[in-house]
């Protein structure tokens, strides 16, 4: 965090706890409150098993939230992530259960991992082209796939739940390395990779410049359209990966439910993590933190027997709180 030289106190003093502190560390504060509450109230909270259950759940939110944070950094939004999850989640089993996949198990598996991601990336390309070359507002452009993406997934699967037994594919959602769920490692690796990308690469600089002041970025030679398209593609590809993880966890693809309302979770996680909806900031670590907060809220309410519907209200309250802090932050 940079310190404002004008308002920074000149002498040493205890850190003050005021609105400014809360604004900068709101996500962290929420996390601490949730943890303390759970330690006191929820039975069996302080156990490795609970931790791993939560990690396996939070990974998909975190992965989608990372992509969403990049899109939000351009000043855009991607409503289609949940539908893209359903699409890629439905495609993967179709591929390894196809006659070709059954005849060539290895090749089928490779195809089942790569083709759905490519399909998701194609969805991102569609979003990106709509937003840049056709000048459609991001919320409208991504609404197209928000509606039709899940429809395509349902058509592909005839609207049925597809169950399968494929240990190699299921490793994506149920495997463990050093005890931690595999998807937890994937999310961690992505968080590190994307953080580095934002901070150190030309793409990252251009991303923040485009989101911070598009006209200025264009005059300074940033390839504005390319940066935006690449960002939508990455966001969709990450959503596609998350969709496959969900399918792997369940050993079944359910196009009607996979990724349902994920766009809201991801946006909420990004905003709680400190992303500015007008663009120009991409706090990746914050997005992961935000995803953890969202997951913990779900878990806390579930573990204490609160209805799902009430959990939605709690989530809404968190989003309102985060947006409120953000409004005051912009001054």
């Amino acid at each position: 965090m940079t310190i404002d030289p004008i308002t920074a106190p000149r002498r040493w003093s205890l850190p003050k706890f005021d609105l400014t502190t809360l604004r900068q560390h709101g996500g962290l504060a929420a996390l601490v409150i949730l943890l303390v509450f759970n330690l006191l109230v929820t039975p069996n909270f302080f156990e490795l098993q609970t931790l791993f259950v939560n990690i396996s759940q939070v990974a998909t939110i975190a992965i989608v939230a990372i992509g969403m944070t990049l899109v939000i950094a351009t000043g855009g939004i991607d409503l289609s992530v949940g539908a893209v999850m359903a699409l890629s989640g439905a495609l993967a089993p179709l591929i390894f259960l196809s006659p070709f996949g059954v005849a060539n198990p290895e090749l089928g598996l490779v195809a089942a991992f790569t083709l759905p991601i490519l399909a998701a990336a194609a969805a991102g390309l569609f979003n990106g082209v709509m937003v840049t070359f056709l000048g459609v507002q991001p919320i409208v452009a991504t609404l197209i796939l928000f509606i039709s993406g899940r429809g395509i997934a349902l058509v592909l699967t005839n609207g049925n739940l597809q169950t399968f037994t494929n240990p190699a594919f299921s490793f994506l959602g149920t495997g463990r390395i050093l005890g931690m769920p595999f998807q937890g490692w994937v999310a961690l690796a992505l968080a590190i990779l994307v953080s580095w990308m934002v901070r150190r690469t030309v793409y990252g600089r251009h991303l923040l410049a485009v989101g911070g002041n598009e006209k200025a970025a264009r005059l300074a030679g940033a390839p504005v359209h390319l940066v935006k398209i690449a960002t939508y593609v990455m966001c969709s590809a990450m959503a596609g990966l998350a969709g496959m993880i969900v399918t792997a966890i369940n050993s079944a693809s359910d196009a009607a439910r996979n990724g349902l309302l994920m766009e809201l979770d991801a946006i909420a996680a990004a905003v709680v993590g400190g992303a500015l909806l007008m663009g120009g900031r991409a706090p990746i670590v914050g997005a992961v933190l935000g995803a953890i907060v969202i997951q913990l809220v779900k878990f806390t309410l579930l573990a204490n027997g609160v209805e799902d519907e009430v959990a939605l209200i709690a989530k809404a309250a968190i989003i309102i709180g985060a947006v409120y802090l953000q409004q005051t932050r912009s001054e």
Partner: protein
Amino acid sequence: MNAPLLQMSGIDKSFGGTAALRSAELTIGRGEVHAVIGQNGAGKSTLIKILTGVYTRDGGTITFDGKPVHFHYPREAQAAGISTIYQELNLIPLRTVTENICLGYEPRKWGMIDWRLANKHARELLARFDIDIDVTRPLGEYNTAIQQLVAIARAVSLDAKLVIMDEPTSSLDDREIAILFGVIRELNKSGVSVLYVSHFLDELFQICDQVTVMRDGQTVAQREISDTNKLNLIADMLGRDPEEIRAAGMTDFSAAQAKTGDVLLEAKNVATGTRLRDFTMRVHSGEIVGLGGLLGSGRTEAARALFGVDDVTAGAVKIDGKQGAPANPRAAIGQGLSYLSEDRKAEGIIPHMSVRENVTLALLPRITKHGQVETKKERELVERFVKSLGIKASSIDQPIRELSGGNQQKVLLARWLATEPRILILDEPTRGVDVGAKLEIQQIIRGYVEQGIGVVLISSEFEELVEGADRIVVLQDGHSVSELRNPGVTENALVKAIAHHYADRDAA
């Protein structure tokens, strides 16, 4: 003599231990136009923000209209009769002129808004200032000048006793300025005082009665405009001796010293649309070519055409012997062009980014290895420019939005100089920048020209053009109409060149 309308005395204000104001004073009489001037960071805006209730003061007293006051919110100041016309107008462009004037105070009849009366009221109000427009049209359909006047009309309709104008003329052309000044005089007649903030000293002598000069958070002088001159005001602002400044020269581009070399850029009969129709110019290595003309004559459009921002629809551009205008800014930068745009805020700075990131934005491809920014190289380069341009920032990682206008402009200049351009296009490089920074920027540019780059200089200040440019291409309604050559060009000659062709046009 009546008691003054406003008396601020002994005003102190500090931000986290740094004093922004130290017992500053401001006294404004009734019905006078009072200018407050000073370099960026002198405390003008802090003083005004305390007056309007945006900041609370640490010490001192304010008496307004005979009563001691202490405003905590801008609304309180407004209720007391202090209206501020901001640089960025806080009006609603999609609503009608009437709605903008009456917003929140609409006349009512049977519980409904009486639009007939409201329109009549708005028309009468504007008629006082000799403005006759259709008040039922959306405000956004009118130009900035009209919008500004509507903002003033709104202030007057709210019974303002003091109207604060912050750089009101910065986006107006001469004719519009004349209208604005007419309105200000009209305000004075009805006893309304005006607090006028401007970087254009010439204006003060046309419209102001009194001037308060600030430096380093203190009020250093209050003068009767008729008793002073430009040189003395600048000396007050800088805290220097007038004679010393006279010797240094007001504008330091000091043209016509450099030898000119090869042709770097050539534009022949270039058009991009309705605003630029027929533009021809040539830039040699080691010279500054000015673009003169009134606002809207196509100067900025010409720059945008050369830099590949707007598509060229007719004519030919040749850069470094290569035919064709750049396809986009990225290509232009690759061909050795740089373009410091006119609107620092909208097209220049990336506010969330640091000084460092802002400087290297256009340079990124050249300080990158395998897609990764070479941070060590980057820091060295930025440190070097911060030093050589005298950019004042707490560190190169300070967000650019925290810097003063002049320093932001220097950062943007560094952005473009860092790309080592062959041709540098400067659109109003010293607008909204204080006198000290202005001199520095002009010196820096001259230094680069002597090393052989070519500069295209756009400026609304005739003085800057006449003294700075080796040649001046005069533009009018999107056509380049004539060319003046230094030495020997005077402000009068430039004005005549512009006016002359207008006369021609009228005759034709």
